[in-house]
């Protein structure tokens, strides 16, 4: 009888612990998830800006001069990256309204893609 009581108590405690774990995990995730980061850089679209939206880079190919920074502006709700095929540059995972800039110094065609969605590709032609 005493054993059964202890078993029931253990069972209840375990149940409460599981609910608490799940609840706090969801709360923790939710609290750290600003979809539109306040810290995101405010960048106005320009000739050297490429918008990311609907799982694609708005400009498949962009021509620019050496030393001119190219900025990718993330407008999609899903996270994306900008990663050089030749491993010359790499952004972190960008959330909505975040941006990444890189200035190309050497002439040539620079290919890049999103590491999370490899079918998203683009080219920068520096000349």
């Amino acid at each position, binding site marked *: 009888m005493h054993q059964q009581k202890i078993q029931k108590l253990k069972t209840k405690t375990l149940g409460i612990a599981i609910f608490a774990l799940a609840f706090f995990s*969801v709360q923790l995730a939710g609290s*750290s998830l600003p979809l539109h980061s306040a810290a995101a850089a405010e960048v106005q679209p320009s000739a050297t800006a490429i918008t990311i939206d609907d799982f694609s880079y708005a400009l498949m190919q962009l021509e620019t001069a050496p030393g001119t920074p190219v900025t990718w502006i993330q407008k999609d709700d*899903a*996270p994306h990256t900008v990663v050089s095929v030749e491993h010359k540059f790499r952004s*972190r*995972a960008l*959330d909505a309204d975040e941006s990444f800039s890189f200035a190309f110094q050497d002439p040539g065609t620079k290919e890049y893609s999103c590491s999370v969605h*490899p079918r998203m590709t683009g080219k920068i032609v520096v000349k």
Partner: protein
Amino acid sequence: MNPYNIREALLAKHAQHVVLIHFPIALFLAGVAFDFVAHFTKRSAFAAAAYYNFVVAAISTLPVVATGLLAWQLQLEGQKLKGILLQHLLLGITSSALICLTWYTHFRSRRDFEQAPPFFRLPVELLAVVAIAMTAHLGGYITGVNIPS
């Protein structure tokens, strides 16, 4: 990428996570359905079916978690996660823990007492289903399968 190149297919970084995740989801949901039927009909065949679904579901969470963590390291170089990616990670770990806990609850009942598992398992299983659904929704959003073509 060549679809018939086995080496490319097996080493396709995060692609394995997307493939493997279907196993614990399907097995666990089937297990929950069997367990609810077993609970209300008191038929041991359904209870056994539920148990074996939970066993394989729990086992299959291991490669899923491993490939998910590998994807984080390979695709994003282990950078600090935020946003949907962090939510997916936390919910995924919670879901995996709940799947393994469900299996363990059934395992203990069968091993120690040979009696019906405790009632609290049913709300835990429902909670796990909700966590799995949320994780899967975010996973679909991250991979892009949810967007209109």
